[in-house]
């Protein structure tokens, strides 16, 4: 085998490389206040390491056609009206809260990814260096004594 063919194109690897399984130690501790703002009290704490956001979730929110504001005189503001107002106000609040939560989560995960990527880049550099040294030694050997 010559140095140039260290990795034959038709190698018989048992399993394809799955980026999901590759782990690199990342020392990342998000601000607990931020974490609290990104987690729903009833559910598990938000984990930036595991939670990905799909394209679907990142799309800008669809513009819903809003009904024009029609002025309602006070005498028409009966109970039914106020019940409807209350219902809509609650829904609007839920919507705003959900949106805020989502944006916080994305921000934390982005910050985590920045750290992870920097660690990954370091790992790549280390591996390349290591590989270079080995191939160099191999080349020197093969130069003197022919292919392995």
């Amino acid at each position: 085998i010559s140095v140039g063919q260290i990795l034959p194109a038709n190698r018989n690897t048992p399993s394809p490389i799955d980026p999901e399984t590759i782990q690199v130690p990342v020392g990342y501790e998000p601000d607990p206040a931020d974490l609290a703002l990104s987690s729903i009290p009833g559910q598990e704490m938000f984990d930036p390491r595991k939670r990905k956001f799909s394209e679907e979730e990142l799309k800008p929110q669809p513009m819903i056609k809003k009904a024009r504001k029609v002025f309602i005189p006070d005498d028409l503001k009966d109970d039914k009206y106020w019940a409807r107002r209350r219902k809509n106000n609650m829904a609007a609040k839920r919507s705003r809260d959900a949106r805020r939560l989502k944006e916080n989560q994305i921000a934390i995960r982005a910050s985590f990814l920045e750290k992870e990527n920097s660690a990954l880049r370091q790992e790549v550099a280390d591996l390349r260096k290591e590989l270079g040294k080995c191939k160099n030694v191999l080349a020197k050997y093969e130069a003197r004594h022919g292919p392995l």
Partner: protein
Amino acid sequence: VFQSHEEDDRKVRRREKNRVAAQRSRKKQTQKADKLHEEYESLEQENTSLKREIGKLTDEMKHLSEVLKDHEKICPLLHCTMNFVTVPRPDALASCLPR
């Protein structure tokens, strides 16, 4: 009567100012979110590609060390008993084995 017209005028002006300010604020919020999403997406892509590269490189390292290990067993320089010239230190090759 004159006064109430003035008041209405002021009210209308204030409402319009607030409407415009609200519109500006909403626009700012969406732009901020869009920018964040863009950055996030590029980070995810970079993340995946880096992991893929690490996988490739580690595979290459494994393969290389296997090749070297196999060679060590049959290396003429290490095994020939009639060899009086200086034998290349085995550590030179074996030191390449992964950490």
